[in-house]
């Protein structure tokens, strides 16, 4: 057994332990904490799987923002968490569920073991066409050229989720700002962090977007960091969420997707196909789209964490 495999084994065991903890924990808070740890461990797995782009995304979104969201919900729901054990399904029932889950897992595991060797891959093809896109990071090429449609839709999905979250506002608060994220008890150290970290974070985020064209990184990762910085300042009480009816909020939210769509449509005339880039401009357009999307995605992520409007419009 090589050292690497031993490490992988240890990692797998830890992840499974965290997963079991997350499922089995008696109350919600430790479960969520377990989930965040699980997300961070997964980041390591992604590194082990030679997927640094995914690792960045997982760390930023899977562990980070999802964790913030879930922890926030946990603390807000703590008062209402019923201790009811009677609602839980009976033991035989849970055994039946467990049995079927095991069967499903076993089926997937069997397929994993039986996978063809050598595995079919698009890596050579992606590499061969990479020069056409001008970028150096194949993942970015996939996201913004080969499968640009998915990315375009994904930005629409984020916006749509935001519309969905907003639609849950009480009518009287429509157009107002989401509830403040600031902790109930103001804390000096947090506001210090809120002042020190964001400049660094924003630089880091921009850097990740910028290198994304050629090295691991990209808009979602960078945007998440920038978004997280925003959330941090809001939590530190240094900023309040903006009112959602303000025009600039809307414009920032929509700009990224709209720009992407516009470039895609322009491709009809300039490059002969929707979402195609004209020769020689591919890289610059891709970077431009990434930048535009970064801002919008960061704003969307921040507002998704902030939740629906909960304060009346200031007049």
């Amino acid at each position: 057994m090589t050292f690497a495999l031993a490490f992988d084994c240890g990692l797998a065991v830890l992840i499974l332990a965290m997963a079991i903890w997350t499922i089995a924990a008696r109350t919600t808070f430790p479960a969520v904490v377990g989930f965040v740890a699980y997300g961070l461990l997964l980041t390591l797995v992604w590194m082990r799987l030679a997927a640094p782009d995914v690792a960045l995304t997982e760390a930023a979104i899977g562990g980070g923002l999802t964790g913030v969201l879930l922890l926030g919900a946990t603390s807000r729901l703590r008062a209402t968490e019923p201790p009811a054990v009677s609602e839980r399904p009976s033991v035989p029932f849970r055994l039946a569920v467990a049995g079927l889950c095991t069967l499903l897992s076993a089926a997937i595991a069997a397929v994993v073991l039986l996978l063809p060797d050598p595995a079919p891959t698009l890596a050579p093809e992606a590499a061969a066409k990479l020069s056409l896109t001008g970028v150096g990071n194949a993942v970015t090429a996939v996201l913004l050229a080969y499968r640009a449609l998915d990315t375009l839709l994904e930005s629409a999905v984020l916006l749509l989720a935001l519309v969905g979250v907003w639609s849950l506002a009480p009518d009287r608060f429509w157009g107002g700002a989401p509830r403040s994220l600031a902790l109930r008890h103001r804390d000096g150290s947090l506001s210090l962090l809120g002042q020190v970290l964001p400049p660094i974070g924003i630089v880091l985020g921009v850097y990740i977007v910028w290198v994304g064209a050629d090295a691991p990184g990209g808009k979602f990762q960078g945007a998440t960091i920038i978004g997280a910085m925003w959330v941090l300042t809001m939590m530190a009480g240094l900023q309040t969420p903006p009112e959602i009816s303000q025009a600039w909020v809307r414009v920032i939210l929509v700009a990224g997707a709209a720009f992407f769509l516009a470039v895609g449509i322009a491709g009809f005339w300039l490059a002969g196909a929707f979402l195609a880039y004209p020769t020689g401009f591919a890289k610059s357009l891709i970077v431009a789209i990434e930048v535009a999307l970064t801002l919008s995605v960061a704003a969307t992520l921040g507002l998704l964490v902030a939740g629906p409007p909960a304060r009346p419009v200031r007049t």
Partner: protein
Amino acid sequence: MSLLLDIFTVVAVSLGAVFFLAGAVGLLRFPDTLTRLHALTKADNVGLGLIVLGLLPQTERPLAAVKLIVAWLLVQLASGTVSQLIARTARRTEPPA
């Protein structure tokens, strides 16, 4: 020279790992939040510091070394703030031991 540096790295990283181990034991064994926090922060600061220090000679480019140091500083900042938060919350919610 490189051998010396390698030995330095091994020693420093191992020492860092020991601190982390101690921190983990403390986290599991200490009775209340504040003492646990105490164990954890010590491990974090010193352990991570030693590991970063140990890795510095192994970097190929200066930029990588800067990155490592920045990572350490950021962790310092974050863990300092978070432990502060946890400690305050603990003092508010837990009865003093």
